[in-house]
């Protein structure tokens, strides 16, 4: 069983981003990431080398990955936003497969994928459209629960109504599923009860405009958070005059252990950024990326350091101890940086094509399990 689940309770008091994973002697960090046309790569981050590449049964887009809690199975939302595959990363065996579409209903999921704390259930969002002879009918979105044990032709076991426009999701230690939509929702997957965890569109802060949120990257496992960034206008006067308006980057966060939520502006809006997360073990440090890599002091709302990147990277992630960071997405190499200095340490080149909007997942796992013979 993964260390994380054993240690979380003890670390709960450490608060924001504080639940450092403690690796056993045999363990080291690995990354799983998907690229075109149909590869799932397992990377040994200690060696910064490819451990193995598994072949997916179809198209890799969008390449959203969620790991099982024991980090044995990588679940991938791919197949043009319409399929979920489970791959045993020690041997590339396909353990799970679900085709979201059925009958004449075409179902797409926009990067919505999560796994229950006991590893038995897989969650996604169905955005169904009924395709008829001569017209389409958009149907209501649903929260769908699949059983991991249902094998290669899995069907949803439970379906609950949810609002439209949900993208990323993460499971809390208590089993609640946090979902990014107009607001951040909390879904109890046992009952289908839905509540608002963070009122975002429905709770615009006084003096602020509506936050704009783009995310398809469920990162944040290593910092124990559900995390999404927003950009927002803060008005200086009631007329909302442009001269008095300031623009900020901020984040909405749910602590996956405690369920505590936070909404925080962390820096002035200067450049476009795609993903950001807290540095494991450093709750006041928030990093974000696109054409720049930026390290922020959250309390001071200040950029500690910013560097120009050689190219754009969509997806940031950290080593479990927070010492290194990994930039993935867009093309087919992963850039490695020292998280403290933002000094570049190297690149890991992946066979195959673009990662595009794929999500990288970092976790620690026993070498004995994952190393090739």
């Amino acid at each position, binding site marked *: 069983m993964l260390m994380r689940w054993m240690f979380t309770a003890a670390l709960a008091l450490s608060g924001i981003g504080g639940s450092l994973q403690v690796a056993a002697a045999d363990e080291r960090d690995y990354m799983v990431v998907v690229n075109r046309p149909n590869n799932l790569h397992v990377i040994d981050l200690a060696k910064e080398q490819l451990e193995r590449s598994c072949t997916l049964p179809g198209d890799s887009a969008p390449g959203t990955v969620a790991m099982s809690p024991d980090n044995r199975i990588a679940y991938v939302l791919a197949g043009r936003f319409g399929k979920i595959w489970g791959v045993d990363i020690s041997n590339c065996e396909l353990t799970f497969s679900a085709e979201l579409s059925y009958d004449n209903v075409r179902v797409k999921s926009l990067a919505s994928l999560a796994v229950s704390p006991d590893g038995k259930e897989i969650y996604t969002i169905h*955005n169904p459209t009924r395709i008829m002879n001569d017209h*389409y009918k*958009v149907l209501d979105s649903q929260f769908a629960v699949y059983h991991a044990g249902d094998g290669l032709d899995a069907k949803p076991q439970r379906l609950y109504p949810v609002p*439209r426009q949900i993208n990323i999701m993460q499971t809390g230690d208590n089993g609640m599923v946090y979902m990014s939509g107009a607001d951040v929702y909390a879904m109890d997957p046992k009952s289908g009860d839905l509540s608002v965890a963070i009122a975002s569109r429905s709770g615009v802060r006084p003096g602020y405009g509506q936050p704009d949120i783009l995310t*398809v990257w469920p990162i944040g496992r290593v910092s124990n958070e559900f995390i999404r960034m927003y950009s927002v206008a803060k008005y200086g006067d009631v007329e909302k005059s442009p001269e008095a308006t300031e623009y900020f980057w901020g984040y909405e966060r749910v602590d996956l252990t405690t369920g505590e939520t936070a909404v925080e502006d962390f820096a002035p809006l200067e450049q476009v950024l795609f993903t950001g997360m807290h540095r494991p073990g450093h709750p006041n440090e928030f990093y974000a990326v696109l054409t720049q890599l930026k390290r922020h002091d959250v309390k001071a709302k200040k950029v500690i350091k910013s560097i120009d990147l050689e190219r754009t990277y969509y997806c940031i992630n950290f080593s479990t101890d927070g010492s290194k960071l990994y930039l993935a997405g867009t093309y087919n190499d992963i850039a490695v940086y020292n998280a403290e200095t933002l000094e570049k340490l190297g690149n890991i080149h992946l066979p195959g094509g673009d990662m595009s909007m794929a999500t990288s997942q970092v976790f620690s796992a026993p070498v004995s399990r994952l190393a090739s013979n």
Partner: protein
Amino acid sequence: MVKSLNSVVRRLVAPVGLWTATMLAPLYATAEINAGEELLRNRCMGCHVPEQNEPLQLSRISHQRKTPEGWLMSIARMQMVHGAQITSDERRTLVKFLADTQGLTPQESAPYRYILERRLNHIEDKQPQLAEMCARCHSEARVGLQRRDAGEWEHLVNFHLGQWPSIEYSAMGRDRDWLGLALNEVVPFLDKNYGLQKDHWQQWLDSEKASPIGEWRLVGSMPGRGDFHGVMKVIADGEDRYRLNLTGKFADGKSLRGKGQALVYSGYEWRADITLGKEKFQQVLAMNPQGDRFEGRMFLKQQETLGVNLTASRADKPSLLAVSPAFIEAGKSQQISVRGTQLSGDVSLGPGIEVLKVLKRGKNEIRLKVRARKGLETQALDVRVGEQNLAGGLRVYDRIDSLQVSPAYAVARVGDGGGSQEKVKAAFEARAYGAGEDGVNGTADDIYIGTMPANWSLAPFDQQAIEDRDLDFVGKIDRRTGVFTPAAAGPNSKRKYGTNNAGRMSVIASVGQGDNKQEAKAELIVTVQRWNNPPIR
């Protein structure tokens, strides 16, 4: 010469036995209906449900009206997305049939002709109800060039979201309840403003249609080449089909000569392919209901931003088309040509413009040497020849108060470079204005003087463009014509990050010298190729 398009669809409403001799006259029309209905049965009925047999009504298809280009796009989608089987010939026949039986009237297409005329840098004045919800991916014109009732608009919304689920997740979709707004606000708005309105179409069908056969006199202008005039002769080549001969000349002395074919849809939508010298042009013109005027554009097929804005008048009817050049400086004398058809009677150019000499007096051109009195203020003058009047046809100016580059914002695209996509050029004009009575530039009473010859140059648009040295890479502007030619496609190892030749430029026009020098700027985005080029952007 005059036939009723109604006869084309008469059979749809009248039993065959009631046909009179005159109704039967256009035989091709019957054939067209038969061919059209047969194609609908054979190519579309597999998915679209017959709702009525006489005349044939199919689900979805019979409840919409649109332009020929609109029908073409719908059918192309049936092929690409739904796998409908239809040959190119059959598709042409069906587009013609549908545009003739379920088209738009001249009034309905009028506000959006720029999109049909391929004015790719036209900046739309978008309606707030549509700007963000609909016209963020394509033009508002694509919406405004359709007529359908609420149920059909609702199907369209469902199709959009079903086909492109990211609509509600991308910018201007994710910040609102996109589907709710589309169904509850946009659909009623569209129903009200762009409803099926069958009666409008029926009135148009019932009205008498003119024939384009005969001789036409053309005037216009093209960025970089100046004013244009010409003659187009049109002869019949089958039902609604024509052959044409065109000769013409630009102000810069270059002449054009060639032949082409045309097809008329919906009783007025003229589409022609013409080869002039070595260049292939396309004409997209609308004939007025009286059948004595064409308005539209003739552009290079492979370089759509380069084209002539055209107005044409039937040679046997009197009209006053244009004055060229259309402006004169106060205190100066110059030659001008007054162009039109069947010109006769006294010429009047307005107070203060003195005719010094008549150099030529013809039916289609009157060439004059004129002088504008010193001290005249900038104003637009009505020009008259006999009964014919051209409001504001000649502008006199004492000075240029302001200059504007048109378009103010343009997009050019890199191309060639071994790739399959041609470069997309951009063409600019320098438009001169007088400040008007209030003496303030940029107000409603500004007086448009004309398009001035200018000196053209490029400058980096902003700090970013300076840092990236865009000026060295993006391409070149012709100093004299204002036509920008972008650089080659593909990565450029000389650039930072080995990126492509994209960039952001200011296009600068400069007119006059010394104290009278005026400058104006436009923004030019040089970007990568566009991989699809639908007939309605």
